[in-house]
Each structure stands twice: as C-alpha cells, then as structure tokens.
C-alpha cells in the first residue's frame, strides 16, 4: 500500500496592469483555449487543474486577480494563503514592465515570505510589437531572485511550463521543509483525509497572519 495524498496549492496570479493576459493564461492552462475578446476581470476569478509532480497528484488552485489599480485592495487579500505567484507583464507594453517593482514589493509585503514568484512576459507571439526585450525580463528576474519565462496565451507557448515550473518550485520547497504544510496560510493544504482536522487549526492561524492584508 502506497500512501497517497493530494497536496493543494494556491497560486495567485497577480499583476498590476489590465489586459496583460492573465485571464487568458489561466484559461489556456485550465481549458486549453484562447479567448480573443477581453473580458475585464472584476475582482478575483478562479481556476483549477490537476497535475502530477514526482508521481504525486497535485491540485493547482489558481486565482486570477484583476489587474486594474482600483481592485488592488480586493486582490491584495488573496496574496496571503498563496504558495506561489505569477507576475505577468505584457512584452508589447513597456509601462506594464516599468511598474513591476512596485507590484513586487506589494506582493511580497502582503504574502508569505517564502512565496515562489515567477516573472512572465506574455504575448510573445506579438514579436513585431515587442517593447520589452527578453534580456530585460531576464535581468529583472535575476536581480530580484525570480524565475523568468516568456509565454503566449494565444499560441499556448510556455503556458504549461510556466505553471508547472512554479508548482515544481513550490514542491521542492515543501520537500526542503521551507513550507509548513500544516499552516494553511502558506497556501498548501494536504489532501482531503486530513482536511477536517487541519482546517480548524489552520483557520485560526490564517486569521492571525491576515494583519494588514485585508482591504
């Protein structure tokens, strides 16, 4: 008998500017399709997919937050309780890249300090309209200790890799013992058989950590 359990990760997808393609990335990852029409995300949406890492079934729960500045207070509360984040900018719009620093600070401040952050330069299919060089993205990531990748939600290029690599990074951290899997505020939940006993405990601790996060 092989002990088998499901880990649940919360991964928040965050970024400042609207329309960089977060929702599209998520849709591509969960549904494998692309939506050409921009459906403004109002608030926080949500998607999930099962993946397998190291022979273990893992449910990735992904929060797609609104990019609009005005929703920041709402989305911020979702940072905590996330094990990882994808910071997305649009390679065809320099302004989305320029504001990365402020958003990174914001994210770090309101989240678990161990949160894995991946930097994503999206819309790589629009090479002709590129404003941010790949090297710039790489440099920024190196400087802030992030993983970097360019993706296209349209062609699905690297989308799978972006999410799975992030999940792998988190998984490794769990193995290293960096994350306390009994603390749900870390964004990690153990499979259903333990959920009932852990949840009440985690609930309390989550409340403590909430601190300045909410609203």
């Amino acid at each position, binding site marked *: 008998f092989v002990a088998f359990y499901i880990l649940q990760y919360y991964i928040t997808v965050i970024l400042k500017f609207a329309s960089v393609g977060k929702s599209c990335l998520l849709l591509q990852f969960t549904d494998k399709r692309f939506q050409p029409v921009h459906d*403004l995300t109002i608030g926080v949406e949500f998607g999930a997919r099962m993946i397998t890492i190291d022979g273990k079934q893992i449910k990735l729960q992904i929060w797609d937050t609104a990019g609009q500045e005005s929703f920041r207070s709402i989305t911020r509360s979702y940072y905590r309780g996330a094990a990882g984040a994808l910071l997305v900018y649009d390679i065809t719009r320099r302004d989305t890249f320029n504001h990365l620093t402020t958003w990174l600070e914001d994210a770090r401040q309101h989240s678990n300090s161990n949160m894995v952050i991946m930097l994503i330069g999206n819309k790589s299919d629009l090479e002709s309209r590129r404003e941010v060089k790949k090297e710039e993205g790489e440099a920024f990531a190196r400087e802030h200790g992030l993983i970097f990748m360019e993706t296209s939600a349209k062609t699905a290029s690297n989308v799978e890799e972006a999410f799975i690599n992030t999940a792998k990074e988190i998984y490794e951290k769990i193995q290293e013992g960096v994350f306390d899997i009994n603390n749900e505020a870390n964004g990690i939940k153990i499979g259903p058989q333990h959920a009932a006993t852990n*949840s009440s405990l985690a609930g309390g601790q989550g409340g403590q950590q909430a601190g300045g996060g909410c*609203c």
Partner: protein
Amino acid sequence: MAAFLQWRRFVFFDRETVKDPIENGKNFILPNGISACDSGRGHIVLGDILIWFLTRSLQLSSFQAYKLRVTHLFQLKQHSILVSVGQDEHGINPLVKVWNTDKRDSGSPLCTRIFPAIPGNKPTEVSCLSVHENLNFMAIGFTDGSVVLTKGDITRDRHSKTLTLHEGNSPVTGLAFRQAGKVTHLFVVNLEKVQCYTLSVKEYPRLELDTHGCALRCSALTDPSQDSQFIVAGNECVYLYQPDERGPCFAFDGHKILVHWHRGYLLLLTQDSKSPNNKETSPTEKHVLTIYDLDNKFIAYSAAFDDIIDVLAEWGSFYILTRDGKMFVLQEKDTQTKLEMLFKKNLFVMAINLAKSQHLDKDGLSEIFRQYGDHLYVKGDHDGAIQQYIRTIGKLEPSYVIRKFLDAQRIHNLTAYLQALHRQSLANADHTTLLLNCYTKLKDSSKLEEFIKSSESEVHFDVEIAIKVLRQAGYHSHAVFLAEKHAHHEWYLKIQLEDLKNYQEALRYIGRLPFEQAETNMKHYGKTLMHHVPESTTVLLKKLCTDYHVVPCSVEGAYDLCSSGNLWLQANSEEFIPIFANNPRELHAFLEHMIKVEPFSPQGVYDTLLELRLQDWAHEQDPEKKEVLQRAALSLLRSDNTVFDKALVLCQMHSFKEGVLYLYEKGKLYQQIMHYHMQNEEYSKVVEACKHYGNQEVCLWEQALGYFARKEEDCKAYISEVLQHIDLNNLMPPLLVVQTLAHNSTATLSVIKDYLINKLQRESQQIEEDERKIRQYREETANLRSEIQELRTSAKIFQKTKCTMCNSPLELPSVHFLCGHSFHQHCFESYAESEAECPTCTPENRKVMDMLRAQDQKRDLHDHFNRQLRGSNDGFSVVADYFGRGVFNKLTLITDPPGAKAGPGSLEADLQRDLLIHTKRNV
C-alpha cells in the same frame, strides 16, 4: 470604484407594471406595510399582520397567523410547507409556526407546529431563518449572534430537537443550507465573519471562511449548477464561498441592500449611488436592481426603482415589490431575441457562451457560428472566420464556406476547413479532390502526408479519387502510398510503372499479390517489365507458372486452401510467351525452366522453345556447338510434345533437315521424305526411301521412276533399280512405265529392255495360262449345261448303292440329290447344314457363290471409293483406309479373269493420280 470597470450591460428583461385584473388600466396594489415575503409552490406569500397568498391570476387571500405581526416567512420550494416567525404578544417573544398550505383548518392553512424561538434562556429578536428542503433542518439566526438549529422532522414537535449551534457577538445576518450528495452544510454569516458548519459530521465542525461578513439579506446560495456556492455581498465585492474555501469575488460596488440568486442570475439591489443626497429631498429611497450573469460575465438587466421591498421569482418571471405598493414584473426575453441583440453588437463570443448556457440546440449554435464567421470574414479576419465555420460543420452546407474562401483564394483557410470536414467524415469526393488540390497548390507535402497517413483507422475520403488527384498533381509517391495502403493494385502498378518508372518495385509488388491478381497484372504489365527488368521479370514468371504462393497464409484454413488448390495457383505459361516478344534470351531461359520443372507444359511452350532452339542452331557457326544444339532440337522433337504441323514448318523454315525427316517419318509422310530427297537431288537416298517405305506406300516406286525419268542427268543405275522393283512387285502396267520413261531424254532403250522383255514374257505366259483356263471353263460350262439340261428333261436315276457319307450300303430311308450323291437319311440329317443342299457339294457351291457375290461387291466398292475420295479433303487417309481393307488385293484378278487387266489396273492408275493430287495439296 469607477463605474467604467464593469461588465457589458444588456436589456434582456422587459419590465412591466403589474395591472389590476379587475379594474382596467389601474395598477395592482399590494397590501400595506409588508414586513416579510417569499414565493414558491405557485404563489407569492406576503406577511404583515396577516399572511397573504397571491396567485398568478392576482387573487389575494389572507389569514391571521399571529396576533400582532409576521416578521419572517420561508416558503419551501419542494413542499407545501410555509414557516413563519411572528409575534402573538408584545415584548420579545418570537414564535415559529409551521404551516401546511395544502391542508385547511377552518379556512386557513393547517398549522402543524408552534414553538418559541429562544437561544438559551434570554429572549432575543430573530434576525433570519432558513429551512432545509429535506424538512430535517431549520436554522434560526438571532441578533445576539447565536444560531439555533432544529433537527428532525421540523413540522412536528415530537420528532425534532433543538440546540444552539453558534454563539457570538455579531448579529447573524444570513443562513443557508447546502446539500451536496450526502453532505449537509450550513453557511452562517454575520456582520464580521463567514463560517460554515458541516452538519453531516458529528459535533458539527465549523470552518471560518472569511473575516468580513455582510448585512441582513445580503447573502444567498447559488444553484447546484453553480456548485451551490454561498454568496456574500460586501460593500466592495460580492464573494463566493465553497464550504471549505473562498471562491472568486466580483467587485460589484455600491451599498448592497439585497442579494438573491434566481434562475442562474445574481440579483443585486444597491442604493443608488448617484443620489446619496436625495434622501432629504425625496421621501422614498432610490434603489438600483442589477441582474448579473456570472458565467458569461455580463449584466442582463439594470434599472432604478423606488424603494424595493423584495424581488421574488415565480411563474418564470421576476416580481419586484416596492414600498409604494406597486408590483413590477421582469419578463426575460427569449434566447433568440437575446442573441439578435448580441449579433447587432457583434458580440459573437458572448452569444455563443450564452447559447451554450441556455442549451440552445445544434442548429441554433451552428447559425451563430455562421454569423460569427461571416462577421469575421467581412472584417478580413479569415483565420478567425474559418475557425467559426469549422464549428458549423454538420449543419451548414459546406459549399457556402468553400465558395467564400475559394473566391478569395484563401487556400490555407480552405485547407483547414476541408481537413475538419474530413475529420468528421462528412467530406464527399469533391471535397477530397479539393483538399488534395489545396495541398498540392500549397506545396505542403508534409500536411499531405499527414492527411494520407493519419487516417489509419478510418478512411474519411474516397481513396480512388485521392489517388487520381495526387497522380495528376504529380505527387506520385503519395499516390503510390495510398494505393498500396488501400490495396488499389491497379493504381499502384500504373503509377509505379507509368509515372515513377520504378520497375523493380512494381515487380516486387506484383510478387506479393494474391495469385489471380498477380497473374492478371503480369499479363498486363509483363511486356513493360520485361523490357526494363528482364531477369527479375522472368524469375517472377517462372514462379507464377510453377509454384506461386503469397507468403502470408497465416490462417490455417487459408493455408489448406492454398495447398489443396495448387492446381489453380499455377498460371498457364503459354499465355506469357508474348511478353517475351523482344527478348529471346529470357524467353529461352523461361521456357527451358518450364519444361524442366513442368513435364506437361502447354503446347505453345514446346513449340516456342523448338523455334528458339532452331534459331540458335541456325545461327551457330561453331560446328561442335551446332551439333549440340541440333541434338537439343531433335530431342525436343522426339519428346512428342510439339505440334506436328508447327514443328514441321519450323524445321523447314530453318532448313533443319534432321528434324524435317524425323517429322516426315513420324507422320508417315513417306512421299514427303522422298520428295525431300528428290529436291535435294540425293538419288541414292531417293532409292533408299523407296526401299525403306515402299512396302508401306507402293506409289513411291512409281514416283521415283517418274522423278528419275524427268532427270536430265544420267541416272540409269537408279532407274533400273527402280524398274526392277516395279517389275518384281508388278507395281505398274508396262505401258505406264514406258510412257513415264518416254519423258526422259537420256533413258535409252537398254535401260528398259530387260524390263520389257521380262514383262512381255510374263505377259505372254499369263495370256497362255488365261486362254487355257478359258478353254477349261468353257468346257466345264458346256458340261454343266448339258447336265442341267439332262436334269431338267430326263428323270434322274439314283444308281448309287452306297451312302456317300458312310460308304455303307444304302438302306431306306435315304436321301438322293441331283448331283448324284445319295445318303442314309440319318447320315444326311447329321451332316447336312441345310435340307436343300447336298452336304458333299456344299463347300464347292459356296466357293462359287462367294466369288459371284464378291464380283458384285467389287463394282459397288469402286464407285463408292471414287465418290468418297472426291468428296473428302484428306484423300490420303481415304486411300489408306481402302488399302487397309484389302480392296486392291489380287484376288479379283482370278475371279474375273477377262476384265482383270483393264479393271483394277485402271483403278489403280486412277487412285495414284488422285493420290498425287491430294497429297500435293496436303503438303
């Protein structure tokens, strides 16, 4: 929050003020001072002091439920059970009453249970109420923050027990039961927190879901189709919760007053933000009702109303009750109308999503895809358009799409469409042709390959057409691949040979076909193959004509068939001979092989082989080799497998002397043999032939004589030799001999002197002999005549005293004959063959009779023979036949001496002439 950050807004509902059914034109007016309401089971329930029921036809009825007032109403949707909270007396003393609306008790619904709602021991105001549809749970929230749960049959006191589930400080603002499978949850929200109890687990574990709550009436539960999520409307956002975690949130701003989830829509009532200051100026509040479609992310309806009491869903519509007693109905537009609205704004993606969530049928969806496709097409987004058109496949006529893209020369798009058509097995032959043409036009051979090869399991296209198209376009290898894969052997070979000129491959292919197909194809293409790859072709032909079998005979039954049907799996080698037309070397090899392995090969094989051997022989210069070849040819002739006529012609053509002679001999054509020698002027051989075959064919001598006679050279020796034979056997009348020899200028009298003398001598002897016999016969005749005369005229006296038979003295009874013989009666009876004849004279008599009869017969025979000879086309055989029957025997000469010389002599001359004519014709 900025108003522009909102979803698209539509007017998918028609709003109407509900009119009074009796008083025309006047608005329907609600009872005054409504404090609670709900709907379900075909009516709207209102509560003030009374409980009111409003039917669809707007009939109002009421009954007194409480003495003072009704504060809460909960109508179950699946049961005719209404639960109310109200007051019968002043002070804080809420009473729960359960009503069965199907049963009547003196005009009002039957009240099945009454109990006070008190958490613990101090009385508190009830803030909210919820009842599980299974009638086993009822939850009551209180302003002091506690929740009381009633478990068991909630309609009866005895069967249920009540406990305080929750205690807290913040007033409870919302309660909702969630049932998923066997798991029951209760969501509890107060002003500060969202929590969830699991009621299906002992001790009812609690989970805190969020650290902010909502106001009264600002929570609801979604449909099971939306996962029965708990909706909590905070001021900034609307949050959704699962029993164990937070779900998405929507930043619908504004001060929330009321939240409902009805029929897939989120109904949100907010205070009108535009008129926050109007509170002073206008007596009534302005409310904005917004109906959201969370799935498709749009606003289905939004409008401002005056001070709304509640929004209820019943009879397929939404009913808005306002404080001023009015009632509005929101009637949802039908799907088609909604779609039209979306089309007008070119919101096709939304239309598609909407159509799907409304479960529009395939036709409807296909129509949307078409319109979307058209729209994108007009915009010039051909790639996008084709994606939509592909979704119409199965409904929309393909030609509609094809024409569009063909006209625009959008081959890439067209290809995509056609591919999809094929994938769904809806392509006809034209589509296949078109698709293949597209591929070839695009020079996209990898796609082409993929198309051809990917459809392993099912073939979505007409293979033959595909082959043709590919061939025409010069994609021969693809065509060949298809042909091979689908066993279109004819096509495969045709292309391999005619286009690719890959003869070896074609040959290999044929070699793997089942016998019959291999045979026909070999006949068809054999010549071409022979021309290009002679050796291998011959090898295959050899196999085909001997022991052809295709390798895979896996099934046992099939194997049996193969082995037992061996006879059938062998081609007729003769039929393949024409294939070798220009390749005698291979033909030779083939035929040699055939007669070696197959002793009973068809005639043609031997004949052709003979011809080949003769040719070789004729062309060979080296005498030694020539000798070998000659033996080979002869042995073939001797094998008796060749057709006589053909072999003869062949031998003659190639002047193959040995062969010709052998054949003549074999065919008993002795004259021919002689003639052959005559033509070659080999005199000694002529004579030899005569000696050899003269016994069997008498006329040889005569002909030899004629031959030598005509010769101008001196060949006396031969003539005399021949004459000797003729003389010896009396083969020719002397006159003929003389006549024959008269032609010759060199033949002197001396040559025939001996013969003539000899002849004349014998002749005169014969004459003498004959004359003597004539005399003798005459005498005998005269004697007989006189005897007969005697017998006729005078009585015969039988003087005989002894029996001719036993030679003892005659005794009576006795028999006497005119011939003079007498017999004892008993002797006669025992010896005589007939009563009328004398037994002693019988043998003599019979000889005479036979002679007479034979003479008669002879005459008949001659006529008959002549007739037959003339009528027949094989005179030789007729003559031979008569020979065999002994017609020409000398016997006749004796029985009929006077005509002996002229008769048969002339007959024989006739015959010989006929014979010559006929045999000449035969040659």
